[in-house]
Structure formats: structure tokens, C-alpha cells
């Protein structure tokens, strides 16, 4: 039964991912006094892209054709090991937080390689920038994860969330610092403003879009969907690590229903906040981004130090 719940959880992740992207877009449009597309517009886009024919550049190799499937399946697999609405799922034992960081890195490895495959300047530019950002974001992310893992004395995600939600620890100073650090890393990793703008196709500023410029049709659909999944993964990780109130621990229909309802509410609030933040912030210059991520790293480090010095000793 619990494995079925884990499966349901994964499917919910995958299916809800485009919706969250739609909500953010809807909020932004409302705030900018534009006519908003319907919330389910990302589904319509995916549906259209899946049906469309793929334009394949002559210069590309087999890797270019394999990468969308690989990236997509890694993203979906990561969903399986992150608790969504119930904590005690057996799949979390397969991969702990460090493996999750590794899985994100693996997906990015293939995406950046695919970016370089067509042999155009755009792809290389996107890949190079993506690797710059990830190289600095990854240690910061790991520091943040270390800080939260230390409070639970475990790197297993279920254990961490359980500990954080049981002990009502969210007022701990180390958690506040880790939460701030996590937000900065998540903005960078999911390619949101101020690091990357998901809506432009202006060559001087784009990162993620430059990398996938050669993709079209079904391949593009897989990659877009994977990006949306990554976005919802980071959102859920943020909510479940730092605001885990109400998440179900063990299997009960009532608990799960309540948990899903609360989660949907929290995700909507997060999407609104993100939308407001995105229209009020400007994109940073590329060489300013390392400062931002260094700040994230320092925050993570402070969280670890505060935990080690004050909260343990």
C-alpha cells in the first residue's frame, strides 16, 4: 500500500508541475495588467509540443536525441524520492539529500552537453553559463542541506522532515539562515529572476533558454516538462523542509487529504510571492550572480556554524 502511495505521490508531482508554472505566470500577468492565459495553459503547450514535428539540426549526434529522455526521467525519478504529502515513504531510503543534489547535477550534465551538441554559439554560451552558476550553487545547496541534516542527525529526507515537523523547530536560528540560503540557491537552480529570466529569448541574458535553443517538438516538450518538475521539486523541498506543518506522517486517508489541501495552499502562496518578487526585481548581470550565490553559501555556512556552536554545544 505504502509503495502505491509513493507512486501516487510521484505521479502527482509530475502532473501538478505544469500547473504551478501556470499559476506563477497567471499571477505575474495579473500584476502587470496583462490579460492572463488560463491556468492550464502549460498543459496545452505541452500537448501541442508533443504532437509537433521535431526539427533536428544536421550537426547533432545521438546524444542530442537521448538527452531529453534522460533529463526527463531523472527529474521524474527525483520526484519519487522527495516526500510530497506523506513523510514515511519507503522510496526516500533509496536516495538521501546528497544523492538528490547529485541527480540534479546529472540531469544538468546531459542538458549542458546537449547544448553544446549542435555546434552553435548559443548552445555553448548557455552551457558555459549554466555550469558557472551550478558550480557555485552546488556547494551552497550542500551547506544548506548539511545544516538541516545536522538538526536531524540524518541525511535521509524523510528523517529530516519528520524531525523538523515533530519538534516544532522552525524558530531555530540555523533554520532561518538555511531557509534564506535555500531560496537564493533555488532561484538560481530553477532559472528564475534575478538569475535567469524564463520569459526572454534575448541572447545576451538567457541561460537555460540558450542551452535548449536547438530543441523543438517532442524533445522540447520533455525538456520543458522536466524544467517545470524541477521547479515544483524545489518549491516542495522548501515548503516541506521549512514549513512542514500538517504534512501526513503515516498512511491515513484523512491525514493525506488534509496534507494535500495544505500543500496546495502553501504552494499557491509561494507562487504568488514568487510572482510578486519576479515583477519587482530586475535580472542581475551574469558576473553579479556569483555574489548572490556566495551570499547563499555564507548563509548556509552560518547556519551550520550556528547549529554547531549554539544549538548543539
Amino acid at each position: 500500500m505504502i509503495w502505491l502511495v509513493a507512486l501516487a505521490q510521484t505521479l502527482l508531482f509530475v502532473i501538478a508541475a505544469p500547473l504551478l508554472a501556470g499559476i506563477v505566470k497567471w499571477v505575474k500577468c495579473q500584476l502587470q495588467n496583462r490579460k492572463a492565459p488560463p491556468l492550464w495553459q502549460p498543459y496545452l503547450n505541452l500537448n501541442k509540443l508533443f504532437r509537433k514535428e521535431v526539427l533536428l539540426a544536421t550537426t547533432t549526434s545521438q546524444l542530442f536525441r537521448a538527452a531529453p529522455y534522460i533529463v526527463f526521467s531523472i527529474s521524474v525519478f527525483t520526484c519519487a524520492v522527495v516526500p510530497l504529502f506523506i513523510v514515511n515513504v519507503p522510496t526516500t531510503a533509496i536516495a538521501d539529500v546528497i544523492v538528490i543534489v547529485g541527480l540534479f547535477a546529472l540531469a544538468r550534465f546531459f542538458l549542458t552537453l546537449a547544448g553544446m551538441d549542435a555546434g552553435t554559439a548559443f548552445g555553448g554560451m548557455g552551457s558555459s553559463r549554466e555550469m558557472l552558476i551550478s558550480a557555485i550553487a552546488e556547494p551552497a545547496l550542500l551547506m544548506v542541506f548539511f545544516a538541516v541534516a545536522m538538526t536531524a542527525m540524518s541525511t535521509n529526507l524523510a528523517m529530516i522532515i519528520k524531525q523538523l515537523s515533530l519538534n516544532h523547530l522552525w524558530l531555530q536560528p540555523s533554520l532561518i539562515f538555511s531557509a534564506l540560503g535555500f531560496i537564493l540557491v533555488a532561484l538560481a537552480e530553477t532559472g528564475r529572476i534575478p538569475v535567469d529570466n524564463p520569459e526572454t529569448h534575448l541572447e545576451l541574458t538567457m541561460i537555460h533558454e540558450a542551452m535548449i535553443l536547438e530543441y523543438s517538438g517532442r524533445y522540447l516538450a520533455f525538456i520543458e516538462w522536466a524544467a517545470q518538475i524541477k521547479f515544483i521539486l524545489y518549491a516542495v523541498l522548501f515548503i516541506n523542509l521549512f514549513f512542514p506543518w500538517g504534512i501526513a506522517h503515516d498512511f491515513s486517508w484523512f491525514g493525506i487529504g488534509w496534507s494535500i489541501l495544505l500543500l496546495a495552499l502553501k504552494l499557491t502562496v509561494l507562487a504568488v510571492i514568487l510572482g510578486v518578487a519576479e515583477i519587482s526585481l530586475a535580472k542581475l548581470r551574469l558576473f553579479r550572480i556569483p555574489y548572490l550565490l556566495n551570499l547563499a553559501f555564507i548563509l548556509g555556512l552560518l547556519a551550520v556554524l550556528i547549529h554547531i556552536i549554539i544549538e548543539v554545544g
Partner: protein
Amino acid sequence: MKLVLLLAIIIALSSSALTLALHYFPRTLKFVFFTLLGTSGIGAIGAGLSVLITEQNISHKIGLSFPNLILQFTLDPLSGFFLAVVGIIVISVACYGPSYMRSYEKQRPITSMSFFTGLFVSSMYLVVLAHDVFSFMLAWELMSVSSYFLVAYHHKHAANRRAALIYLLMAQASGLLILFAFSILIKFAGGMSFDVLQATKISPTWASIAFFLAFFGFGMKAGIVPLHVWLPQAHPVAPSHISALMSGVMLKVAIYGFIRFTFGLLGNVCWQWGGVVLFIGVVSALLGVLYALMQHDLKKLLAYHSIENIGIIFIALGLSLIFMSTGHPLFASLGLIAALYHCLNHAIFKSLLFLGTGAILQQSHEHDLERMGGLFKKMPYTAWCFLIGCISISALPPFNGFVSEWLIFQNAFQAVTLKSEIMRTLIPVAAALLALTSALAAACFVKVYGVIFLGQPRTRHIRHARDPRFGMRLALGFLAALCMFFGVLPTFTISLLNVIPKQLIGAQLPNAQNWLWLIPITSKTSSYNALFVTAGILAIGLIGYWLVRAYFGRIKLRTVKPWDCGYGGINSRMQYTATAFAMPLRRVFQAAWSICEKTEKTGSETSYLLQINDWIWQYVYLPLERFSFTLARSFSRLQGGNIRVYLAYAFITLILLLWMVA
């Protein structure tokens, strides 16, 4: 088993001796030599595995005609593990060699190379088996000298001779430091056998001196920063299969020496030692990868990555020492196992990458990344194998490099249990820097792979490249399969390795017998199941593919020219180059290198010059070189060339000696 072991060594030695006899029959020579080498590799693996499984040591003594001098060799689990590592790489080199040597045969006889390769391999077997100081140093020096001749194989270029000389100098310096370290132990113990050395206790001060001598001695051979400068010079110069042996295995033999000396012989460790090892490890890992990022000579780049990986191994060893000295034997054994597992993994993926590089060089005759490109379509088999190597070295799941780094992270995570607040805060920082290192390594290998295999060919040579011959393909496939095996099913190996910390530290991992789940401490703390990760990703990929295909129909493809912004005429020079790819990282981490960047305009032409140098080479080694030359020159004034002056020197020396004796 003793017979197998003896046979392995005798075969390796005889392969070397036979080459001299077969000098006039080069074709026979090649096949006989590599067959014997491969057989010895199989023997080494067999002997190594058997001692890891049965935990029964094998000893052998050889008496010499000198009194009190007995060469003692013992195969215990630690040497067995390293023997097996050497064996694995020797086998793949033996598969690879015959086809690879084709390009060398045409230029000059391969007798000397085969002779010294045989000697090199057998000396590595002997180093890990040696059980007394005399035989250890004998084998160690044999290893250094025979590898010098291999580095100097292309001695017609002055630059190669220079690289080989630097290698020999530093190898001798490291040998000297190790000898000093051993002599301190011998002074206290009064014997040369490792058993005697192990049993004696020495004062903490002398132990510290001996430890640091050994650390820098073995570290110099392993390539820690700042003693790494020989490595990026020597490795690219040697033929590729020799680079694989040197980078993949010889550096590991130096690690073996360090582990044997510290964990086996010294015993009582201080936490400060661990702190220093950890610090040097972090510095080596980070600087190694940063220097590698700026390289576009493929073999030099791989050599810098060896420095990085040696740094990672020393991080694990440093953690292990810290935990051992503070009374946490369980975590100490986790660190040691992580270090050993990374030794194995690095040996495999680095050899895979070096052998892959050899295949690329043989086909394209290019060293320089900026002149390659688009090789994926020309040599797909090599490309897939190389991809596996790149993923493994970048420490990405589910391949082998990730497992050992994951273990190191798990070990660093246990720092919370330490009493010392400094260590408790510094170890997480070290872990974060390790994360930075592996992220930078991933960036570097995206660059390498993207520029070599993807995109369009940048030069004409590249267009004629093909996949190499069967033997080379076999070696690449074998190593790539091992990368997957050790990544997906790590628990088999780790449960075998568990006997080593049991003997050296006196503790072992409690949950290592579980074959499916990798559990370093307890299943509550952390667990990793690489098999499920791999199976899950594959299954989801296939299901996704079939579902989309069933629902939306077969994929419709149309090949077109890549998007050129509507201008047309896209060509291979418009691609991102390796330098361009690394440029943002160069700008962010610019303090790590001494960069000289110039743009000059002469008439209508603009030239751009970019030089990136190693700080340490510029500010430590070059002044040292200049100083030693000045010193030598001032001494050379003594040599007037006049026979009467020399006679006077001899006379004065004689008088002085007589005075001292009397």
C-alpha cells in the same frame, strides 16, 4: 594462492626480460609481452581477491648473501586490495597495448618501452607486497627509475627530456624523504621488518617528524599541492597506456605507502596530523580542478584531474585520521574505506579516460582541445565509453565516482560528534569545498566532452577519425563496464574492503554485509541504493517513451541546418571553444591563477594572447631553480681546471680526514 602470487610476479618480470631476447622479432615481442603482462594482471587480481576474502596472509622470505638482510614479502588485505587495483589496470593495458603500439612500431623499436613497462609493473607489485624497509625502498626506487625511462621514451624533444628530468628529480626527493621517515622508525625499533616497526612505540615528537616526512614523501609521489608540479609535465609526455598506468596506478601505490606507514606502522596518530592532511587534501582538490579547467591540452588536463582526485583521497584519509585520534574508530574506518574505494574508482575512470585519449590521439594526432570537435559521429564507441568516464570522474550518480564521494560526505557529516569545536566547524567547510570541487569537475568535463565529441569538427584531421581496433575497444569497454559495476553495486566491494579497517583500525562498518543497500552507519542516518536509482531512471525513461509514443504517435523528425539567426553560413569556427567555455569561471576564480591576457593591434590584424600559469611553479619552483643554478655556479669556481689546484684539494682533504680520525 602463494603459487599464483609468485607466478604473477615472475611472469611480470619475465615479460620484461623476454623483450630483450625478442628485440629482433618486434611482432612476436609485442604479443608475447602483452600476453604475459595480462596474465600477471589476472594473477595479481586473483591473489589480491583471495586474501580479501579469506583474510589469510601469505608471507615469503628471500635471504641475501649479506648477513641480517632478508627480503620479506607479505600479502595482507591492504596489499591485496592495491595488488588487485594494479592488476585490473594492467589487464586493460595489456588488451589495449598491442593495437596502440602500432603507431609507435613504425617510428622506432618498442623493446625499451616494453622492457621498462614490465619492470615498472613488477616493481609496483613488489612495493605493495614488501614487508621490510629494505625491500620496500628497493622496489620503490625501481618503480621511480623504470617509470622515468617510460616518461623519457620520446626523448628527441627537449621539452620531454626536461619533463622527465623534473620527474626523476622529484621522485628521488620523495624517495629521500621516505627513507628519512623510515630511518626514524628503524632507529627506535632496531630492525627493518614491518612487524618489528609496528610493534615499537616511539615518542610523539619523533612520531610527528616521521609522519610529516612520510606524508610529504609519499605526497610528492602522489602529487599533492604544492609538490605536484612534476605530474602535469610527466604524464602527458608518456605514451597513453603508460599515462594510464602512472596516473591510474602509480599514484595509488604512493597512497598505499602513506596508508601503510601511517595506519600500519605509526599507529598512535594525533588529530593535528589529520587536520594537516585534510587541509592539503582540500587545497589539492580545489587547485587541481581549477588548473584543469584552464587547460586545453587533453592529457595535461587529465593530469591535473589526478591531482584533484588525489586531493579527494587525502580528504578522506585526513577525516579518517581525525576520527581515529579522537576515539571514533567506526567513523575512522568509514573514512579509510571511502579513501580506498576512491583509489579503486579513480584508477578505473582515469585509466579509461587516458586510454580513450590515446585512441583519440592515435586517430586525430591532436593534443589540443581547440582543434578537435564532432568526434561523436566519427568514433561513437569511444565516445560512449568516454562519456561514462566523464560522468564517473565528475562524481555523478549512479556511477562509481559518486559512491566514494558520497561516503566522504557521509563521513564529514559525522563531524558533529567531535569534541573539538574547530574541527566541528572546519570539516563541514571542507565538505562544501569538496562539493565545489566536484561541481567544477563536472563543468570541466562538460567542456572536455562538448569540445571533443560534440559540435562540428574544427580541423581536417578529425574528419578521418574512426573507432580504434578491437583490442583497444575491448579495454575501453571493460573499464567502462567496471565504472558502472562499481557504481551500481558498490556494496560487494565495500563488504570485501571491510577487513582492511578491521586490521588497521580495529573497527569495521556494521551494515556492510547488506548487498542491496549501501548503509555507512545506520539506516536511519543515511542509505543509498544505486541499483534502484539506475533501474528507476531507466524504467521511467522507457515508460515515458512508450506512453508518449502510444498516445501521441511516432516521433516525426526533419533534419535541418542549425539555427543561424537568419544570417546563414554557420561554420565550425563559430562554436564555443574550450577557452570560451571556461571564461566565466576564469573570471570568477581569477585569483587562483596568474593570468596574462593581451590584445595587440598590428595594422588591420588583432592578436589575442592568453597565458595562464601556475602560481606555485612561478613563485616557488622557478626561484628554487634559479637559486640552485647560482649555487652550482659559485661552486664551479672551485674547478679551475688546473691539475695542481686539484692536487692541493686532495691533499687538504686528506689532512682534514686524518685530523678528524686522530
